[in-house]
């Protein structure tokens, strides 16, 4: 099943079970270094700035944003799609590899799922604010109300989006928490501090590791994994229908659902890579997340990058081949050339060209290479969403509608705020939750080593 001659051991250094517990739990036992406090301070300041920008938005209205009558969707929707995309890969990573029984997921899945939960939280802020009157957000819940009862439009992609994101947040959080139960139990039994014992005891919900608990735990993991895999594909397809159902040139195309799903996984895997490079570097967990792990993610990124490049070319080709002059205009006069060339070519360079550097083994094994390319991919994916949202809206069918778009300081503030929120969440995760699934690591500790049966 697992060929160690090809991949090498999953966990290096012949760890004993006790050693695994100790090494993964140690960041929670010993206090964090100075870097942690600095990073935490910076990200909380960013989050507070974001909350201030949100306050201004709610107090004065979305007129404080750069959006206008034509470009009614600006940075907020770009950021929403970007965050949701990042949020995708955590689950995609963890669940697809679970179903495919790829054991190398074990050292990475916890962090990937944590990233998902925080990213989806950040994403959910934007559509809620974009409704304009955020205090009326409950109007979108389909519940028997005193307004008729008037129901929401179940045929609308915007409602699909709402239900998909709500479900995605709940499910990815449940899956993450479920996977954490055995590890919280481990910390509870291991710690000597009374407060920690009480807190982790509460959150581990009485986990003992009995055979009955384990079998139900495993079968529930597979059930949730199996159905959440469907959800991963459907959520971003639904996000893409927000655009594809509209008739704007550049949006009205059937390539969108797969294009969005692949793009989401692309940016999410890049973010997983960013996080793992930092975690293994800072916490010296290179025995658990080996060079081979990073190599595998880098290979997946090359593959997805090629799919993205194909999609970009296909979009251009189809707009030419269809002979639709509006589509042609958007693609060739407003993206490839025109006012938004920077964003278009930036996207091509970041997403299609630079990731090709991963063909070189030296770069796949160099942490600076991995970190910078993964950040570049996320920049590229942001530019891609900017391209889709803004270029199509800025110049549509009627030249009298044409306007240019630029964000205001409030737009930027909300975005910075979500980055701060994400950073704060990830830092708290590093501090208080085992960063890798301890119990799963133990079950794969012998794979690829000499003790293999």
């Amino acid at each position, binding site marked *: 099943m697992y060929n160690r001659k090809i991949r090498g051991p999953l966990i290096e250094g012949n760890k004993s079970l006790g050693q695994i517990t100790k090494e993964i739990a140690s960041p929670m036992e010993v206090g964090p270094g100075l870097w942690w406090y600095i990073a935490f301070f910076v990200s909380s300041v960013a989050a507070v700035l974001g909350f201030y920008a949100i306050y201004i938005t709610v107090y004065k209205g979305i007129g404080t944003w750069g959006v206008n009558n034509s470009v009614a969707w600006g940075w907020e929707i770009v950021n929403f799609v970007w965050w949701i995309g990042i949020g995708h890969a955590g689950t995609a990573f963890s669940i697809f590899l679970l179903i495919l029984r790829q054991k190398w997921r074990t050292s990475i899945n916890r962090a990937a799922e944590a990233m998902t939960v925080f990213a989806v939280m950040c994403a959910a802020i934007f559509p809620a604010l974009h409704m304009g009157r955020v205090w009326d957000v409950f109007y979108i819940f389909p519940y028997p109300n005193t307004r008729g*009862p008037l129901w929401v439009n179940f045929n609308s992609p915007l409602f699909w989006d709402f239900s998909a994101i709500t479900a995605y947040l709940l499910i990815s959080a449940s899956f993450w928490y479920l996977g954490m139960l055995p590890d919280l139990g481990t910390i509870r039994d291991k710690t000597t501090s009374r407060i920690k014992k009480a807190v982790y005891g509460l959150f581990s919900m009485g986990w003992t590791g009995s055979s009955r608990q384990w079998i139900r735990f495993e079968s529930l993991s597979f059930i949730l994994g199996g159905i959440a895999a469907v959800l991963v594909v459907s959520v971003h397809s639904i996000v893409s*229908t927000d655009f594809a159902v509209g008739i704007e040139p550049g949006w009205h195309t059937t390539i969108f659902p797969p294009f969005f799903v692949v793009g989401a996984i692309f940016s999410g895997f890049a973010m997983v890579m960013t996080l793992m490079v930092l975690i293994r570097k800072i916490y010296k967990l290179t025995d658990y997340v080996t060079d081979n792990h990073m190599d595998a993610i880098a290979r997946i990124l090359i593959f997805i990058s090629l799919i993205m490049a194909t999609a970009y070319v296909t979009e251009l080709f189809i707009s030419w081949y269809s002979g639709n002059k509006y589509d042609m205009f958007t693609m060739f006069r407003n993206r490839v050339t025109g006012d938004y060339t920077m964003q278009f070519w930036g996207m091509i360079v970041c997403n299609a060209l630079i990731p090709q550097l991963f063909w070189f083994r030296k770069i796949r094994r160099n942490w600076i290479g991995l970190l910078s390319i993964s950040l570049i991919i996320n920049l590229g994916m942001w530019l891609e969403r900017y391209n889709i949202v803004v270029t199509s809206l800025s110049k549509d069918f009627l030249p009298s509608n044409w306007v240019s778009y630029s964000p205001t300081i409030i737009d930027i503030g909300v975005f910075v705020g979500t980055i701060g929120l994400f950073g704060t969440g990830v830092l708290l995760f590093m501090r208080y939750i085992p960063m890798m699934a301890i119990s799963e690591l*133990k079950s794969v500790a012998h794979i690829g080593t000499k003790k293999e049966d």
Partner: protein
Amino acid sequence: MMRTFKIGIFDDEGKFLSSIRSLQEQKLQIFDVFTPYPVHEVFHLLKRKSRLPTAAYFFGLFGIVATLGFLYYTSVIDWPLIYGGKPFNSFPSFIVVTIVVTILTVTLASLALFSARSKLFPGRDNTIFDLRATDDKFVIVVDTNFPDQSQAGRAGNLMKEQGAIEIIDKEFEKVEA
């Protein structure tokens, strides 16, 4: 009533498994075993099965029927409105919401069932026979009162023979597992 248990601690998966096998050959009742990670051989030996997948299937069925029923009720019966010239019961565009809500139903209902059946919920205080079971030891627990006292000594010796690093007798006022 105080209950006494004989607890065998192992630090090796192989010895632990062979010990379960010989206890079973001797017809000695095992109360339960505790491991730091899921050991599939144990499920096989102790004949542990989970019916969660079956339950999840029915949750899914319920989710589909309930969601489609709800959409039909709201869009056709309760407040019919024409959106974009579509029929009231525009089934194809209801599928999206149905898929998502069904997945959510299965997840939440399976979690609730798991929590109830495994007795895992906040504040739950399940009996921990040995603290090391969640760290690096494999633990076999034998109930000394069942079927009768004489079995306990035999079980202890057997586990020792099979390579247990420790045999402990522990008393518990109340056992919740």
